[in-house]
């Protein structure tokens, strides 16, 4: 498979002995215009990789924060087509920052797998994380995406034991996303030593970078996690800032973009201290 922006980013970070800050926001939260502004500002605020949520009505692996963020985006009219449009617009003045789309399979399935892969690639997407497509369902989207040159980033979890890890890693590319807790996004905080052991364990089976997420909320946690992995993913803490910044009608306010990017900068600083 050819090199993607993800491969390049991790390579450059590795050369500087620096860790990746992966910032998650839902596409279209709280509305498409504000969301694009946030997206544009994230690289300057220190995000090395943008993980863009594809809003879905039934995000089964997500906690209340990302559920609410997804709902806000849907209410503001976001669709999968709209998400791809956002990526396209982002790419008009940023050709370096990798973009990973994260979400659930149904909207992609309804869009049409071939059409989706084509349009995502053309829009400037680098990788996909589809929560409800385990290796057992690789024929659905993973294999066609890999063939088209998109990274398919798999989640490894505390329940993925040594017997299963090789299967989970087999068709993974770009990086491995280690889910630091058994649970939903934004819930319990991971313990550094447990995460460290897990990262070491995964690295026995792969040369891919390992980024860790689920439950990372503060700059201190991001620093702790990044110090034992190749990157830290933060989502719930960022979308919570969006939620708190909204006005009484639930609409974007003057603070929404600045506060969200300020939080991103704090988290990025944490990761860079690692």
């Amino acid at each position, binding site marked *: 498979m050819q090199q993607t922006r993800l491969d390049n980013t991790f390579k450059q970070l590795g050369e500087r002995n620096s860790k990746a800050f992966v910032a998650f926001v839902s596409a279209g939260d709280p509305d498409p215009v504000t969301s694009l502004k946030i997206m544009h500002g994230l690289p300057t605020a220190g995000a090395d990789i943008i993980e863009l949520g594809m809003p*879905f009505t039934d995000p089964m692996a997500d906690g209340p924060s990302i559920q609410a963020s997804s709902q806000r985006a849907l209410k503001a009219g976001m669709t999968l087509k709209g998400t791809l449009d956002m990526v396209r617009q982002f790419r008009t003045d940023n050709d370096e920052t990798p973009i990973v789309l994260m979400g659930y399979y149904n909207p992609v399935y309804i869009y049409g797998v071939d059409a989706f892969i084509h349009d995502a690639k053309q829009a400037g997407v680098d990788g996909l994380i589809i929560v409800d497509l385990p290796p057992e369902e690789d024929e659905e989207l993973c294999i066609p995406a890999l063939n088209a040159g998109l990274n398919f980033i798999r989640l490894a979890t505390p329940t993925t034991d040594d017997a299963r890890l090789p299967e989970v890693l087999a068709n993974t590319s770009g990086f491995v996303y280690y889910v630091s807790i058994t649970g939903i996004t934004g819930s319990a905080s991971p313990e550094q030593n447990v995460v460290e052991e897990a990262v070491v364990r995964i690295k026995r089976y792969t040369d891919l970078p390992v980024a860790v997420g689920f439950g990372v909320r503060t700059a201190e946690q991001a620093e702790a996690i990044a110090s034992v992995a190749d990157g830290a993913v933060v989502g719930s803490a960022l979308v919570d800032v969006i939620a708190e910044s909204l006005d009484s009608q639930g609409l974007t306010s003057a603070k929404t973009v600045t506060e969200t990017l300020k939080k991103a900068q704090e988290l990025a600083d944490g990761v860079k201290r690692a």
Partner: protein
Amino acid sequence: MSKANSYTTGPDENGRFGIFGGRFVAETLMPLILDLEKAYGAARQDPAFLDQLQDLQTHYVGRPSPLYFAERLTEHYGGAKIYLKRDELNHTGSHKINNCLGQILLAKRMGKRRIIAETGAGQHGVAVATVAARFGLPCTIFMGATDIERQKPNVFRMKLLGAEIMPVTSGAGTLKDAMNEALRDWVTNVDSTFYIIGTVAGPHPYPAMVRDFQSIIGQETKQQMLEREGRLPDTLCACIGGGSNAMGLFYPFLDDESVDIIGVEAGGHGIDTPEHAASLAGGKPGVLHGNRTYLLQDDDGQITEGHSISAGLDYPGIGPEHAYLKDTGRVTYVSATDQEALDAFQLCTKLEGIIPALEPSHALSHVGKIAPDLPSDHLLVMNMCGRGDKDVFSVAEHLNVDIG
């Protein structure tokens, strides 16, 4: 789709019924459902497990349930001979207990210490709370806030049985949302917890496992009809939300070509309106809750809310095996509206002295549509899968009767 040699060979090793079914779950759950598949595979071949299940079915549930000739309904419609499979007489008042007993025995066998479940009408929740009490396991039931409001008697029953009720306020606060929340709990409590799914949906092996535990309905029906009439029934009819009672009745008859099989979905205010829960009639294939099946959804693949007068049918999906049986044409799927179900509810109560749940009232309303045109020697079996005690309050409301 070409005609299958047998309709009973599914699912394949990947949990597929044709293109439907599968294992669309987060990685955290994947090892758990593989474990479950293995444990269930072993249990179903273990005579000790099967004996214990049978003993409980006989002495705890009260099986076999009668196959009752509904003489006055037959007279009323003036056509086919109508039989009711009386699963509403089971302990806890519906077919749900058949599946719950099987799953809780499996949970014990697997050393699980805590039970979770989703419920819509509360019939499954009551059955889960019942077996959890019987086997001394703590249980948490996820139930949509809307359903809690319209199913108060069942909520209280579950509490009496010692279950913890977790109200779910996301979405429309109905069955779909309760299932999301149960899955979130399961992802969080992977080591201790067994998830008793109440219908023939979810990731493999649930659709096949729940069907197997419910198939006793069809097996008994077959034997009872042979004893009673000396031949197989001509038509089977059952209501469908997720479709477990229907799958249980249909499955043993799928390869009996002479038997006409009809599933009745919840038509709500009509399937030409957005207010219904008929996933086969008004949905298209998609992926939700671990399986590919027909789903009510919009053009962007966002799941839409079902609507039905019956909380038990108010689900935007349907078991994947039903999706397969629809596409192969083996089973005919139709729908009945809220109003038609209400009418059938009252008719059955007055003519047979049986208060049906609103769910099977949908099936009965379809029986009323076809029975008059069928000959008097036509044997029609409808699955009376639940009793209507739980619906008395909401029916009173629909009939504008104040019963305090």
